[in-house]
């Protein structure tokens, strides 16, 4: 299974790098670095790969759970009558707050009642019905009678700001004197940037299958990115210690952050049902339920005031970011921290004052989503540049380039930006390989000749910090077994959601042990194999778990070393057998923690990131002046993954992240009913028919992706870098290219404001305004 790549990313030739750490040193015969297909690819394509809901057909006596969802955005439950549900054939049990033996809460902030007495968004589950079939449970849920006393509801961030409805901390990040910075600027602009959220739309909706095992142990199979936290919340709902609950995740049909916090309550409902009935309980959300019940990417609202000097260099930035948190805190605070830590993107801003706050609105509780606030923070400064550059009389690309960090400079929170020259290298490589100068000229000519259609081109950078902001989470665990026959089984704390983590971990183990991939098998993630794990999130899965696997493998190799020294000619299998007979321990638990991190939440300062991942993208679009419809003609990306652990996996992450980002910025359009009518608070885009993901029609016609060379990362497993999130933000290039194309309908020097998402309608209004300005100037 080699020779898979059509675009020349195959075996990486790693130039000798200055590696000071054993962790990043890569042996000559490394299995990491080779392009291998996803470890489950053959199972995926044949339909043999099992997801949580596929286990139902392989289980017996399973009960199915269906929610009773509230029709109001905010209301008190005044009467809950479950009796009629029991009259429905096939209904076995209705679960309510009275059934909870432990704590009736599914969050980590104790603000998410599992069975609420007050509903806080349309679709909030009041109780759950268990039936012999899903049809019976559905009919039973429809028979449950609930009376509500409606309460006032806040839907938009603006409404929440007006009402002073906030939740959680309101941190401020500051450096220098922003007022003085603005005072010394020659150009000062201010504005508002608003952006919508994004539905994860993992193809596999949330699913849990719970059963009571031997001696009361609860076993929950769940589509969760965070098995440990799922375990903890199931345990506290059931009122049992964590050791009484085991959570397993075979794999997920996509996660993207949407399964970091959101699975817990659902798993707890299934587990509660299983303990009360003694039967397995399956809770799988329909798409509509998933979209109306679970959290999404936060929409953000930002006010900003920015100063530039004569040469287009930032002097200062003052901004207030307001996240649309939805009804509960969930992960909104750490998301906000990351947004504040990325409002600089790749740019040196001498004086900064950035406030953050979280609006409490009556919507789903917004949560982690690939990028975790980073995209929202970065969008602000990219929007600032896109809007201000024309007024400065500068090419936005020039403004971006002039403001790049240089060696020795630090972020507003005080972390020195290491390797800023890598961003420059990526920028220059894209500029050259994509032939940007010539294409800009060609586009200008083309636009002159085409009154009804315009093309636009933009290049944008990404700098993204890797590690959890919260230092504690930066630890990983693994369990490696070498069996007597020489075969190896590995477990680690990370979950597989398609990102190729397991593929990389197999390659890490094979490299560490010096074995071919075929000798190693990876077993599904379980809390009874590796405990106390962090979420598979923050792009850090490979860094953390790779370090832990390598540690475990090296412990075993160290124990084998005396046997090897005595028997230098033995094969691996013979060596293992010999070691067993000499009573050598052939398994090990590995551990890794990221060194050198610091973060002070109270001052919003420190060095929370192990390193920064860099990338640059250039996009060209064509916009129809009649409709605002557009196509992406070409995209060129150079992205920094360090020394790639698995080039095919990394390429997939870059391309997929980019397209997902482009979806957020241009197409995916979450809409809630904000009217005062009876549907107020209802998500009106609650299905695939109304919420449109990128499809083949959004794929760039020409898509060139290269991995940045000479990108070895010292002190990270085999010199690699994280890749899950950063490429999503390469999609800013598409948004800025659309802005560029819209501008071409108008007079020079006129700033273009573009809504986010830049749907065809939004693009139409932007270009129509530009066109009107051109006509007025005539």
């Amino acid at each position, binding site marked *: 299974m080699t020779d898979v790549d059509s675009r020349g990313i195959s075996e990486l030739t790693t130039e000798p790098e200055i590696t000071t750490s054993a962790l990043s040193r890569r042996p000559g015969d490394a299995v990491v670095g080779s392009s291998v297909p996803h470890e489950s690819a053959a199972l995926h394509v044949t339909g043999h790969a099992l997801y949580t809901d596929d286990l139902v*057909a392989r289980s017996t006596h399973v009960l199915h759970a269906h929610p009773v969802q509230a029709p109001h955005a905010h209301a008190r439950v005044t009467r809950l009558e479950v009796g009629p549900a029991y009259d429905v054939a096939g209904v076995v049990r209705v679960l309510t707050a009275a059934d909870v033996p432990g704590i009736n809460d599914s969050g980590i902030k104790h603000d998410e009642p599992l069975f609420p007495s007050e509903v806080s968004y349309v679709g909030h589950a009041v109780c759950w019905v268990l039936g012999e079939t899903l049809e019976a449970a559905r009919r039973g849920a429809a028979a449950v009678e609930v009376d509500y006393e409606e309460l006032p509801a806040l839907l938009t961030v603006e409404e929440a700001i007006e009402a002073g409805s906030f939740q959680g901390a309101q941190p401020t990040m500051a450096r220098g004197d922003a007022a003085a910075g603005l005072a010394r600027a020659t150009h000062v602009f201010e504005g508002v940037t608003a952006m919508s959220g994004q539905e994860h739309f993992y*193809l596999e909706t949330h699913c849990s299958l719970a059963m009571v095992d031997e001696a009361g142990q609860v076993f929950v199979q769940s589509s969760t990115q965070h098995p440990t936290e799922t375990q903890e919340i199931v345990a506290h709902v059931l009122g049992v210690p964590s050791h009484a609950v085991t959570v397993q995740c075979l794999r997920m049909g996509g996660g993207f952050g949407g399964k970091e916090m959101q699975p817990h309550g659902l798993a707890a409902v299934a587990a509660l049902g299983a303990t009360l009935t003694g039967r397995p309980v399956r809770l799988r959300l329909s798409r509509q339920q998933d979209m109306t019940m679970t959290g999404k990417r936060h929409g953000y609202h930002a006010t900003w005031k920015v100063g530039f000097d004569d040469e287009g260099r930032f002097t200062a930035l003052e901004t207030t970011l307001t996240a649309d948190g939805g009804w509960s805190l969930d992960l909104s605070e750490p998301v906000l921290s990351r947004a504040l830590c990325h409002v600089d993107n790749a740019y040196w801003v001498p004086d900064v004052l950035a406030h953050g706050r979280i609006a409490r609105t009556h919507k789903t509780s917004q949560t982690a989503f690939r990028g975790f606030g980073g995209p929202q923070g970065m969008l602000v400064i990219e929007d600032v540049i896109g809007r201000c550059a024309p007024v400065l009389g500068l090419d936005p690309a020039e403004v971006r380039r002039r403001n790049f960090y240089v060696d020795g400079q630090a972020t507003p929170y005080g972390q020195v930006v290491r390797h800023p020259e890598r961003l420059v290298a990526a920028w220059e490589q894209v500029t050259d390989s994509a032939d940007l100068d010539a294409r800009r000229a060609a586009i200008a000519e083309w636009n002159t000749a085409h009154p009804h259609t315009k093309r636009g081109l933009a290049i944008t950078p990404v700098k993204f910090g890797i590690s959890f902001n919260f230092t504690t989470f930066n630890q990983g665990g693994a369990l490696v077994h070498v069996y007597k026959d020489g075969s190896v089984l590995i477990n680690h704390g990370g979950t597989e959601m398609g990102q190729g983590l397991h593929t990389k971990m197999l390659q890490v183990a094979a490299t560490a042990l010096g074995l071919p991939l075929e000798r190693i098998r990876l077993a599904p993630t379980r809390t009874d194999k590796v405990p106390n794990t962090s979420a598979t999130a923050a792009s850090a899965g490979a860094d953390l778990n790779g370090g832990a696997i390598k540690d475990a493998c090296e412990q075993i190799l160290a124990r084998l070393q005396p046997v090897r020294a005595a028997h230098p000619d033995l094969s691996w299998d013979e060596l293992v057998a010999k070691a067993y007979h000499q009573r050598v321990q052939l398994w090990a638990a590995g551990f890794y923690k990221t060194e050198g991190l610091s973060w002070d939440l109270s001052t919003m300062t420190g060095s929370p990131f192990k390193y920064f991942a860099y990338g640059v993208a250039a996009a060209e679009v064509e916009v129809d002046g009649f409709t605002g419809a557009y196509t992406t003609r070409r995209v060129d990306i150079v992205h920094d993954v360090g020394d790639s652990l698995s080039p095919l996996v990394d390429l997939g992450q870059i391309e997929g992240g980019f397209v997902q980002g482009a979806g957020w910025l241009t197409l995916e359009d979450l809409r809630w009913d904000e009217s005062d009518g009876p549907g107020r608070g209802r998500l009106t885009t609650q299905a695939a028919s109304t919420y449109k993901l990128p499809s083949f029609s959004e794929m760039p016609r020409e898509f060139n992706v290269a991995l940045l060379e000479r990108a070895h990362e010292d002190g990270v497993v085999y010199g690699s870098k994280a890749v899950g999130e950063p490429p999503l933000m390469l999609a800013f290039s598409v948004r800025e290219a659309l802005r560029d194309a819209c501008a071409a309908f108008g007079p020079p020097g006129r700033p273009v404001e573009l809504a986010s998402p830049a749907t065809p309608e939004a693009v139409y209004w932007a270009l129509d305004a530009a066109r009107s300005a051109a006509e007025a100037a005539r």
Partner: protein
Amino acid sequence: MAGIVVNGAPRDLAGVPLHTNALDFLRGCGLTGAKEGCAEGECGACSVMVARPAPDGSDATEWTAINSCLVPAAALDGQEVVTSEGLGSPEDLHPVQHEMAMRGGSQCGYCTPGFVCSMAAEYYRSGRAATNGTGPRHDDGMHGDNGFDLHAISGNLCRCTGYRPIKDAAFALTSPASDDALAARRSVPAPAPAATQLHDGEAAYVRPATLAEALQLLRDHSDGDRAATVVAGSTDWGVDVNLKGARAGLVLGVDRLPELRGFSVGDDEIRIGAALTLTEVERRLESPSGSRLPLLAALMPQFASPLIRNAATLGGNLGTGSPIGDAPPVLLALEASVVLASTEGERTVALADYFTGYRESVRRPDELITEVVVPLPAAEVTAFHKIAKRAFDDISSVAVAFALDVADGVVRKARIGLGGVAATPIRALEVEAALEGRPWTQETVDAAAEVLGRAGTPISDQRASADYRAAMLGQSLRKLFAEVTS
């Protein structure tokens, strides 16, 4: 005994509740490769292949990909289905599976079995290989040198890959091997339509053998709670069942009635069977005799996705009476009529007189749409403009169909159909009047576009604002003029 042949093995339908869709049926059999991603035919994760008559009307079989989540399991009675499990095994991958696996075409893998089935159907499409390097070149990025048309998998959504590796996998496919059993299967006719009668105690699924029988059933079940639900491809009804919990006492399958599956081209009209799938209509319109309706041909690629078009019918699109169906604007512009049959006989109704209100029409509950009749010759200047967020497989916020006769620089006749701007699809009569008899100039177009911009009563919803809808009406005429005069 009623049953389905799945991956070569018979599967009994006895005891299966009749609202069960084919996806849940297959998964209940342990064939969990096909997945539910949306339950409304939008994502393709449930795609499977069914042996169907070749859409060009020949005796051959074509492996046809459909959304198994929309079709009742009962409707597949007597048919042959192939799932991802039936194409190959992890140890012995099918060529489509091999290319998808090796090229990074799967990440999370959840959409993958559906992609594989849609891709395999295109792999086996007769005539695909004929374009191999020698056929017409398409410079649209959507056609491979191997004849593979990416539109075939445009009804499948992937959230992980960004599609590039899936495209590469599709374009790397060669032709089926000489010993490929599924390829060989194509030369034998597809299973004959099964006359099906299934009851589960609450409901019945009946697929009558003859039109007379169907009309009789319809008459006997034409009112109130006993009213029959008529389905062909079930692409609308399936959504109601899955998402809205709709249940019918009697589902009447008309998809295989020969009287509803004709296609004939006369001197002055084309008659299209109401139960031909849109793919069948599309393929027949490509034939020399059928190529006289370019406007209808232009509609087809923009109508939903191939997975839907492989099941959906014109009769269904008109029967549901949706104001945002894409066929009615086109058929209105073409001045089409529908033939309504009942036990009392037939009547032909002009489509312009057919719609009476939101999802309402002049069709009586005991009547069945049997044919759509389009007069010939069709207008020369035609266009179908569908305004949507996404280019492929989206529901239009506004749809405009133009059929104009322009001679000697003067608009002789104008017919314009609109969707999405009123409770029913409508003709833009005032705009037609503003064009007819006037010179075909920018001035005329601008004046008519102003009128068009005021047509109907567009609303604001999650798809578009009322202002944008109104703007798009006027812009559609300006765009048409710019395109035909440039």
